[in-house]
């Protein structure tokens, strides 16, 4: 079920009503209800893969309990290995099997060896990269003694399959989300209304920005050999906003929906295109994944508190894995590699933590020229990397760049009305997000500062935009990851 579908528009109010008015007396029943509707939400796409979620939940539930029963480190390690083997193994099979087989055969063909192989017709279960990481973090945290395992099987299964974030994150840590299933949820007016605002903003980003950009981007990347450099440059910019609108829009709807049900999910995006360097960008883009890699891979490898060579190795490992997480294609790996190259100078010059707790033009409306230049440079580097992310092969990515940086880069692009319109929408998005860049999301408002008339007119305006200018319905890009 897509968040931007008619089905979800009917599903959510029904769930909300049953959740707060019918099953609210008993916490266990409320959790069981969440579990059932989460499975219904997932099964709407393909009920066969529900068995995989159930199995994944069961393995980590069992592993968690076994680790707590065994005091011996080697036995704990054995159970952790079981969890890692199962989760990574499932992910490897469904997501990477064909890629590994093909790459293996290609590599041997370079030396004149050829093999017969069978490409499996595997359907990638939606959200597998998200929920396997979520369950893995639970087992790792128990192993490290950071949290205690749960005996409550319904709460645990509900945590793994919690429908707002099941298929595209944010990737929740058990330490944040699981305890929320143990406590009775009470309805909070401000939380619910803010959740609704976040849903509205997320839908705007997805339907008005991403879906409209998608049509133009598909056209430009599909015909890049015939188009002028200036058009290709605009195509790259539009893809940057497509993927941002798509993914951060999904996260906003997910977080807002969870808030309607009394849950707090982690922030996943913090206005990344206002970042002043790549390190800041990575602290603001897909935060739940970046922090997952930081905590479970980068820091265990020694992080930045080690020799320079090891630091460099760690940076490459983390970015390459991040790229590979997105899919079984060399383009994603190259995207990760490019980001590692961008990040490395900052780390070596010890400037990667320069903008940890601040935002551009803090408490000012207009950024300084220096900040504007930094934001522009970071965005430019980002879109160069996005070109490879979007291209079907690394070669295509380089050809796109080559055609983009040709003499026609400075020609005037001949844009249609729809294309001009999309840039106006992006301008609106940037304006709203710039104003709210110190808040949790683009539409967070304080009641004391804004009148109800202004707010309601703004909501009507956004709803009008969503219905009137909404692009053709597209699946969320991150569903494929």
């Amino acid at each position, binding site marked *: 079920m897509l968040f931007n579908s008619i089905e979800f528009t009917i599903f959510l109010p029904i769930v909300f009503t049953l959740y707060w008015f019918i099953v609210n007396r008993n916490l266990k029943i409320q959790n069981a209800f969440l579990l059932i509707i989460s499975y219904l939400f997932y099964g709407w796409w393909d009920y066969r893969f529900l068995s995989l979620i159930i199995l994944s939940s069961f393995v980590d539930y069992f592993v968690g309990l076994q680790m707590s029963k065994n005091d011996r480190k080697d036995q704990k390690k054995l159970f952790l290995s079981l969890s890692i083997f199962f989760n990574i193994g499932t992910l490897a099979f469904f997501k990477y099997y064909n890629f590994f087989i093909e790459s293996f055969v290609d590599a041997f063909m370079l030396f004149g060896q050829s093999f017969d192989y069978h490409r499996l017709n595997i359907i990638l279960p939606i959200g597998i990269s998200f929920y396997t990481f979520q369950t893995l973090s639970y087992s790792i945290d128990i192993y490290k003694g950071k949290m205690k395992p749960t005996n409550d099987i319904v709460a645990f299964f509900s945590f793994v399959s919690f429908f707002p974030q099941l298929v595209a994150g944010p990737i929740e840590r058990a330490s944040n989300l699981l305890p929320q299933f143990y406590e009775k949820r009470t309805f909070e007016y401000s939380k619910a209304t803010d959740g609704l605002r976040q849903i509205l903003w997320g839908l705007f980003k997805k339907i008005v920005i991403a879906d409209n950009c998608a*049509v133009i981007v598909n056209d430009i990347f599909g015909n890049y050999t015939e188009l002028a450099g200036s058009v290709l440059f605009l195509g790259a910019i539009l893809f940057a906003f497509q993927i941002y609108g798509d993914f951060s829009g999904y996260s906003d709807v997910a977080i807002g929906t969870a808030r309607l049900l009394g849950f707090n999910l982690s922030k996943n995006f913090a206005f990344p295109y206002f970042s002043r360097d790549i390190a800041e960008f990575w602290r603001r883009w897909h935060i739940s994944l970046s922090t997952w890699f930081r905590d479970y891979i980068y820091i265990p490898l020694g992080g930045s508190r080690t020799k320079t060579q090891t630091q460099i190795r760690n940076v490459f490992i983390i970015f390459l894995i991040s790229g590979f997480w997105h899919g079984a294609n060399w383009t994603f790996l190259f995207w990760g590699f490019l980001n590692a190259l961008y990040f490395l100078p900052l780390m070596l010059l010890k400037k990667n933590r320069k903008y940890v707790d601040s935002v551009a033009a803090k408490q000012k409306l207009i950024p300084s020229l220096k900040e504007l230049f930094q934001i522009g440079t970071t965005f430019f580097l980002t879109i160069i990397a996005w070109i490879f992310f979007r291209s079907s092969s690394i070669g295509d990515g380089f050809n796109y760049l080559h055609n983009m940086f040709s003499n026609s880069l400075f020609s005037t692009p001949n844009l249609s009305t729809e294309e001009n319109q999309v840039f106006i929408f992006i301008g609106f998005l940037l304006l709203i997000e710039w104003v709210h860049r110190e808040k949790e999301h683009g539409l967070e408002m304080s009641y004391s500062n804004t009148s109800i008339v202004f707010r309601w007119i703004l909501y009507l305006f956004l709803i009008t935009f969503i219905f009137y200018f909404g692009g053709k319905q597209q699946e969320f890009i991150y569903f494929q990851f």
Partner: protein
Amino acid sequence: MNIFLFKIGLFFSILLSLAVGAFLLPVLNKGKPSLHYSIIDKHQMLKKDSDRPRLILLGGSNLSFGIYSPIIQEKFQIDVINLGIHAGYGLKYMVDDYKKYAKENDIVLLIPEYSLYLENGLYGELPLIQGINVIPSNVKLLNFEQLLVILRNLPKLCIKKIGAFVLSKLRTSKGPFVYNRNSFNSCGDAVAHWGMPKSNIGTIDMKKGKMVPSKSIKFIHSFSKFVRDKKGLLLISYPCLNRTSFNSNTSIINQITAELENLNFELIGTPSKYSLPDSLYFDTHYHLSKKGQIQRTGILVNDLEKHGLQQWLNRQ
């Protein structure tokens, strides 16, 4: 919770009131009843009794803006009713709307735009709801997929109508406008644009539409049975896509043609024959100028003659 529900209820009541109010507004185009109302006049033509055989032109605006029916009437001594209004109604709605008025021995010349063979072509888009808005009783013609189209486009229609209504109050339209109810002649051909300055027609890229011709072609197949049962004749021909658009979409057009040929429909002409030079178009890639309309009708008359329409008429 009570305040939350009250405010949500109030907000959605305002939204719903605006939507209902908008839906009740007339479908305007620059302050005048839009071309969608012309269906009422075309229904009157269909209801009219006549001793002469009749030729029904079924399709979108490639027909209303692409045929000058008096030429056909004169050539074959038949009544021609051009039902073309908007391709956005979808093929199914156009056909079902005609079926209500179908008579024995009708000759139906079906000329769908190429988009009607692609995704959304069978069940329509926003204009479908504008058509239903004009004749609400036609809602019973809709199936589940078309109702979904209506549901998806209802908010868009309301916003569009409010915009058109406000604009009509703010400024009055100067001079003639071609997309209104009174833009058609007594056969249903658009003629109000004759002599008006041409505008940029642009090109269409069908690669953007998902290729699903089979669905529409299966539907045409079932319609051909309906026409046969009425002892009529179903002929299928090709729309007048401008030359530039035609040349850049040949592979899709070839696929559509191949599927039509496979089912042994009675096909009139070839796609390339009806693709005219861009200079003969008025304002879009399917809307011809006066000269273009007359030229295309001439080609069609020749093809109908070659196909043996006169002989078929003589046999009746």
